[in-house]
């Protein structure tokens, strides 16, 4: 196992851990961006170049920014005075520890894991594009539909509900 892999893995996990444990939400979001960058680096090392770049584009470029915007819009940029944890947080930690234990145990003891490492597969942009346009063209279309629906839905949910008010505001915008 190359050392670089270990380093990226640790950076990713640290980023994730900080994202989940820091008090200030903006710091959490930034730590999340670090974690996503680390995952992108992991993808690159797993010879999935396209997915790696897409990960950065989608998560760091879009979702992180979106979350940051949401944080500022809900005025939670400051660390709260009260506890940041829920009342039953210890049970939650216990459950997640159990989940990790079970998963790790399953991974280490699984007989389905192949022993030898196969050669790096070829996933050029052309191959991916061909696959998307032939074998996976229907899922691609459906994803397009889902994204459109999600966009419209998000806009409608986030719209102001008070129509009278929004009308006057529209007038003000022009």
């Amino acid at each position, binding site marked *: 196992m190359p050392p670089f892999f270990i380093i990226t893995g640790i950076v990713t996990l640290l980023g994730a*851990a900080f994202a989940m444990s820091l008090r200030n939400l903006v710091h959490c979001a930034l730590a999340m961006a670090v974690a996503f960058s680390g995952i992108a680096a992991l993808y690159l090392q797993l010879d999935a170049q396209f997915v790696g770049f897409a990960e950065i584009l989608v998560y760091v470029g879009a979702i992180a920014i979106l979350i940051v915007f949401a944080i500022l819009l*809900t005025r939670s940029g400051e660390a709260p005075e009260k506890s940041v944890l829920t009342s039953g947080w210890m049970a939650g930690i216990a459950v997640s520890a159990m989940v990790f234990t079970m998963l790790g145990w399953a991974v*280490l003891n699984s007989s389905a894991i192949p022993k030898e490492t196969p050669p790096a597969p070829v996933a050029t942009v052309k191959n991916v594009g061909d696959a998307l346009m032939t074998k996976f063209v229907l899922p691609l279309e459906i994803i397009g539909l889902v*994204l459109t*629906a*999600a966009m419209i839905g998000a806009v409608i949910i986030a719209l102001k509900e008070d129509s009278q008010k929004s009308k006057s505001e529209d007038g003000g915008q022009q």
Partner: protein
Amino acid sequence: MTPLQACLLISALLFAIGFAGAVTRRHAILVLIGIELMLNAANLNLIAFWRFGPHPEALTGFIFVLFSMAMAGAEAAVGLALIIAIYRHKKTSNLDEVKELKG
């Protein structure tokens, strides 16, 4: 430990961290971040199995991750819109203060 197992362990730990955050933190946006982390753990799994699996030329896991990322984008957009809508209503984003939907 094979590389595949290393990837799977990283992904399992990532999943557990995301899960712990989603379960313990009060703020809705952090829950969303936790969910995103869990989703990424799953994606890492898919890529790892694609890379070390028997049929990488089929690109199934690879394409699945692309789709899953698109879904994550949609999910984040709708989720954040919901959080903003809830904040506008109740002036809070803490999940334990949003509990109208109970029996």
